[in-house]
């Protein structure tokens, strides 16, 4: 049972690092966040379903599962925002570099 939880954590961490932080996989990122959002809505609307799914993956209560899913949404969102920031840095670097080369001074 612990192994199942560990596997889920590893899969999620991998998804965050590879999909969340990458410039590519835009559709997968959106699908993951939207998917997690609808999952959390479902867990809130139907506590009995939440409990059922929680037991399937060795989490004791549906409310605990809802908290974990909320954390997953937060972490994915932060990864996506961070990746977007890094992309902006790369664009800014290119602009500053072009300006520097254009305005070179030969002493």
């Amino acid at each position: 049972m612990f192994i199942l939880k560990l596997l889920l954590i590893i899969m999620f961490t991998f998804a965050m690092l590879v999909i969340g932080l990458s410039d590519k996989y835009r559709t997968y990122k959106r699908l993951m966040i939207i998917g997690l959002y609808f999952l959390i809505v479902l867990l809130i609307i139907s506590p009995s379903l939440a409990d059922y799914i929680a037991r399937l993956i060795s989490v004791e209560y549906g409310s605990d599962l809802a908290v974990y899913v909320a954390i997953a949404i937060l972490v994915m969102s932060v990864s996506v925002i961070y990746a977007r920031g890094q992309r902006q840095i790369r664009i800014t670097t290119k602009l500053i570099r072009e300006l520097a080369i254009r305005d070179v001074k030969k002493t």
Partner: protein
Amino acid sequence: MADKLAIVIAMYNESESIRTVLESLRVIRPDDTVIVVDDGSSDNCYDVVAEVENIHLLKHIYNLGQGAALQTGIDYAKRIHMDYVVTYDADGQHNADDIEPFLQTIKTGNYDVVLGSRFLGTTVNMSRAKHYILKFSIWFGYLFSGLKLTDSHNGFRMLNLKKFPAFEMHQNEMSHASEVLDIIRRNKLSYTEMPCTIIYTDYSKAKGQSIFNSINIIIEYFIGKAH
């Protein structure tokens, strides 16, 4: 036609040392093209360099990091059709006499990259802590790039732009040194190490990387790889 070598220097607030560095280069390497990239300095080092003759002086309008400044210099060197580029520190740690042996090696061996090694060469006044951090970086570099080197974080390196003009670093800050190893591995570049001299003065130690910044370098390196 003689091969053209550019010496690329990234400079950030080096008004105290840069004139001495440039004057020494002018004496020892009078025929080479010297490219200085001011990385958004807040002191007057740009003006100091502007008074030295025969320098190609570029300026970032905002501080981006040493890696970014070196890549700007390399990109400029490509545009003015340089054959080889050597990256050189602005704080006086490097020795201009090391450039000629590197140039001879890269030409006769037809290497894509020649990497400097302080552990094959000479260090002056290196602290014990720095020694151990650099030894750790060798192991780290080997773990992630597979390259067995004696010095994996040395700013003194020569690039063969004739053979590999597509050389490009994307990491803006100090992790660019680790990225160079990734570039070598990914593109299967031919490389070798050569001894070089690194001189640690009180000035260069004060300006240099703190031991704790090694943690930032590792984090930046992994985040850069994720892209």
